[in-house]
């Protein structure tokens, strides 16, 4: 807890003291990129599902929320309020890395269940029904988490190696990166890796090809003997797992409360729409823009930080109502 506050103040001190030195610039870039990364990890699943399955999933926020709490249960042992208050400290206490590895697997399974029981019955229904039903699920889930875990926030314990500036085994702190905190570097690196994986998935695997074919014309693809249901299920669950990773990372950057599901899903949905629905490239660019604007606002006009993303979306959608990449095909 202490390290978190120190770390946050340290960041702002840099800006005040160092002005526009290299350190400040690097720190600034990593704040922008880490915020963008979190949004991107959540938005990418939304974007794929929206683009390929024509399913708008507000319940995606449940996966982020679930990821944050499951990760917390794995990483540490904490005392919670709510129904769990009687049981004292609960958790496996396996550490942050274990949480980062195990959570996506659990959320992947949850994603499979969600696709089968929540999304599938609604594929053929109106978009507004989908939006309303998943909104209801999200509110219900958040309320359930509040009842079980209590309404007060929890903070991820940050291990020593994650606090402060990054330091690698052999070379120590890489030149120029002394201002970038380890957790933010980790978030950005991991996101880059995961995004590369998803792009490669679409470009090089048969499943990716099947998803692309199914998006283009699912009836035709099925007539050619491709069972598009499986690839769609897989891509849904991968998107879910990404949201789970984002939950763990976001939980350690910010704090964990029962309302984070809705708090992350609103900007993510806005980013997906701003980028152009179905366009992965649009989602990436949208997230980067959002992160950039967020970081600029923290430096220039801190009171505008939270409003900045929405202002950006409003401006972008006023100029381009169909988003940045309006007619891109899935996988691009």
């Amino acid at each position, binding site marked *: 807890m202490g390290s978190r506050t120190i770390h946050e103040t340290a960041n702002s001190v840099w800006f005040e003291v160092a002005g526009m030195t290299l350190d400040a610039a690097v720190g600034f870039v990593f704040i922008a990129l880490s915020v963008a990364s979190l949004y991107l990890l959540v938005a990418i699943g939304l974007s794929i599902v929206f683009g390929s399955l024509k399913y708008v999933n507000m319940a995606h926020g449940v996966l982020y929320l679930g990821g944050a709490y499951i990760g917390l249960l794995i990483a540490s042992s904490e005392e919670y309020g709510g129904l769990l208050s009687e049981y004292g400290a609960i958790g496996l206490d396996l550490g942050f890395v274990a949480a980062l590895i195990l959570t996506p697997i659990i959320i992947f399974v949850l994603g499979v269940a969600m696709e089968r029981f929540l999304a599938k019955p609604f594929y053929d229904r109106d978009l507004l029904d989908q939006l309303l039903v998943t909104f209801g699920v999200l509110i219900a889930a958040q309320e359930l988490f509040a009842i079980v875990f209590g309404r007060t926030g929890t903070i991820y314990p940050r291990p020593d190696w994650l606090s402060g500036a990054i330091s690698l085994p052999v070379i120590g702190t890489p030149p120029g990166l002394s201002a970038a905190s380890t957790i933010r570097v980790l978030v950005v690196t991991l996101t880059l890796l995961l995004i590369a994986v998803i792009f490669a998935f679409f470009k090089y695997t048969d499943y990716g090809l099947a998803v692309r074919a199914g998006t283009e014309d699912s009836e035709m693809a099925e007539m050619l003997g491709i069972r598009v249901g499986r690839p769609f299920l897989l891509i849904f669950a991968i998107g879910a797992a990404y949201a789970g990773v984002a939950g763990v990372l976001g939980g350690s950057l910010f704090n964990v409360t029962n309302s984070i599901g809705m708090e992350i899903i609103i900007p993510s949905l*806005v980013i997906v*729409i701003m980028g152009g629905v179905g366009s992965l490239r649009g989602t990436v660019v949208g997230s980067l823009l959002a992160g950039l604007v967020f970081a600029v606002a923290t430096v220039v006009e801190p009171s*505008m930080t939270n409003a900045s993303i929405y202002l950006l979306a409003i401006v972008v959608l006023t100029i381009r*109502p169909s988003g940045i990449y309006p007619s891109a095909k899935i996988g691009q």
Partner: protein
Amino acid sequence: MSTDNVQPDVEDESSLLSLDTWDRIKHTERFIFLISVGFVLTFSYLFSRAPVVSDVTQGYHGLTITILIWSIFALGFNLLLGQTGLLSFGHAMFFGTASYATALFSIHVFNEPLTIVLVGVLSAIAIGAVAALILLRLHTVYFAIVALAIGQFLYFLASSPLEGITKGINGLTVSRTPLLGLIDLDHRYSGILGELFVNNSYLFVGAFFVAVVMFITRIRKSPYGLIFKAIRENETRASFVGLDVWRYKFVAFLLSGGIAGLAGSLLTLNKQLAIVDRLYWSISGDVVVMAVLGGLGTLAGPVIGAFVWFYFQGIVNGLPTLGDYWLLMLAVSFTAVVWAYPDGIWGMITSLTQELREPKTLAAKVKTRVAGGSSAEESDGGER
């Protein structure tokens, strides 16, 4: 409406003539006017003071005013979603903007209830006109999410950069002045009037409630309102017929926003407070839940929805053990309604009364009544 449920029981003995007459009169504007006036006149008494079996709702007069205000909000929201088919997840923008306009006008310019409410409504319409320019180029989900984005933008704008004006979470206090300089809204009646209405504040809100119900009925029955429906059913076809779809959507959006703004102003006047939370997305979410739960596209639906919501929030919330689960129960039933029964509670009531009219299914009805009787009764109470 409540007679709607009583009537079929009478019908068992009498001729079909009474039913036909009933069907004819129940959709007339005069009948709806009488029902809504009757509702306002008796609601507070029946809810919070009438000698009833359980006393959990005793003394909740304040809650009845809140329910009326939120009913107005839900009716306004329903005008957009139920009539025109546009789902806005950002109706808090009207509610909150009107709330602030009301408070700021009363503090800095002139403080008279009717004037500040009017200012609130006009401000909501103004913000709606700006938002419409961005929103009406978008469809379905895009419309909903961007409306949400605009609402959130206004929320964050009001909560920190404009904190000097809005006073953030502490809010602005509105002092209460006599209506038109003559009538004291806080005046408490004694005797029978006191039993029925308690104070002028209730009547003030009630009058607006009746006016909104009548206004919406007028729209629903007018050719103009039918065009809203046509757009909901098939926008492309409506434009092929030669209608300027954008213009009608624009008007529907402004009307809906204006009514939502009216609710925001009334709430500010009633609570004597305007706070930044009224712009938050959860306000928009609440009103979506209310309208859908009660029954979209109907008049009674949003009112029932608002009632059920506040019954849970105000009363079930206070119960031991069960109280913690009030929002969970509402969210689950909302999800269930969207999933399986899109007509909502009011739809359930009307289809139940339809079934009651069929003598052949009477036996089957008795069975279902045993299972579903309690919920039907509860909802009936909600409507009254």
